[in-house]
């Protein structure tokens, strides 16, 4: 089967292993993820911080293109892109005035009926019921699942998982054999888009997350957002210097862990691209 796919900019660059492992995992379950033709950047934090109309128009073009490609459903692995696309579709469906204005800017029709799935919703819908029979190499490690801010919020729009103590990633990790532990930082912010402009804040916020994971003996932090991953992983030198420690807990995408469990190779899930190398896989 074929489903629409919006990689977003991170998955084409700093988080290419997320794209690689998502596509490989889908393929292992006979699903082809097809990129939306000529997609553009969702505008991310920058657009919604500076210009509300632009923050609606950029994601709206992506949605309109997906509709034009005949897609009814798209998978958006980046939690931040997913949030922007979902919020945009919701706001445009709420306000006729805004929808007319944006349609005029785009010169494209928008039905507003697209199903937008984040990586967990995609896995839940198409993979979870077949996962156990496919596991050939159980992921028998102690892990903590880090959801970050945006995967489950805002709830009145996303209606997905629990807000304060989400479970979807934990449930799935247990199904592939992991010991998914309880911890205190499931949805605490990593510092998000401040990686470059306020690295000191990222070091502090991500530091608290990494330290709790390490204190509880986690062998890996499992994530589903490229911004969370790059802050906890690529900013590890700054984190460790903030903590005055040398924490080596790796930060893996859930699609990488699942891929390994169903028998994909380290190369196929892009494991070598992580800055903090997992020692066990």
């Amino acid at each position: 089967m074929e489903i629409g796919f919006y990689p977003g900019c991170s998955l084409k660059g700093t988080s290419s292993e997320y794209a690689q492992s998502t596509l490989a995992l889908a393929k292992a379950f006979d699903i082809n993820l097809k990129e939306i033709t000529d997609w553009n950047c969702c505008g991310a934090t920058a657009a919604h911080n500076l210009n509300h109309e632009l923050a609606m128009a950029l994601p709206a073009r992506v949605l309109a293109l997906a509709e034009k490609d005949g897609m009814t459903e798209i998978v958006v692995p980046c939690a931040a892109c997913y949030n922007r696309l979902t919020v945009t579709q919701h706001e445009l469906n709420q306000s006729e005035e805004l929808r007319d204005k944006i349609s005029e800017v785009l010169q494209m029709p928008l039905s507003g009926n697209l199903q937008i799935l984040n990586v967990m919703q995609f896995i839940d819908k198409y993979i979870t019921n077949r996962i156990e029979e496919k596991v050939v190499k159980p992921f028998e490690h102690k892990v903590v699942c880090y959801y970050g801010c945006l995967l489950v919020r805002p709830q009145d729009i996303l209606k997905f998982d629990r807000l304060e103590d989400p479970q979807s990633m934990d449930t799935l990790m247990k199904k592939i054999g992991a010991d998914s532990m309880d911890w205190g930082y499931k949805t605490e912010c990593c510092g998000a888009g401040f990686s470059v402009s306020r690295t000191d804040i990222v070091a502090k916020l991500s530091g608290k997350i990494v330290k709790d994971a390490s204190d509880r003996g986690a062998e890996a932090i499992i994530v589903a957002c490229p911004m969370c991953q790059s802050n906890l992983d690529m900013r590890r030198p700054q984190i460790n210097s903030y903590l005055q420690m040398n924490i080596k807990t790796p930060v893996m995408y859930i699609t990488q862990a699942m891929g390994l469990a169903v028998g994909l190779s380290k190369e196929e899930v892009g494991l070598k691209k992580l800055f903090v190398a997992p020692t066990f896989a």
Partner: protein
Amino acid sequence: MEKESYISEIRSKVGVNVNRCYQCGKCSAGCALAEDMDYPPSLVMRMLQTNDISNYNSLLQSETIWLCVSCQNCLTRCPMEIDIPQLMDYMREKSIEKKSINKKSSQIVSFHKAFLDSVKFTGRLYEIGLVAGYKARTLNLLQDMNIAPKMFSKGKLPILPEMVEDKKQIASIFSNTKK
């Protein structure tokens, strides 16, 4: 008249009635950035409630509005479901419009502007272009010099930008959404 205007404007433009806040403080308690802010979120709400334009101007000049990362912890926990993140977006736009951007926050604003410049030219984010633009705006020329080679060797830093084909449409989106 001036006194009334911002509360009602917020109500009509953002859909937030600031008077619903009863100062329980859960937003400030849960805010990851509160300790770095000049005004934590519950104080922002209280200042808005005073209906005093000088308090509103202080907020438009504050570091708080730029430090908010829109993680939505406040909204998630607010018993009155007040959309503080949207309020922050609105005040950021106002702050730019009134040229009252907080001086200590200039790096954050420069990063956002460099990000959008990159998207404007290529339709997608071009990381090398973004960092070059950011450095040109802030003159932080040596920042992160040591991370780039490692990113490059791991195939995480494409040398050439990804380009959207319909650049005309991207240009029109940017020119038609200008305030």
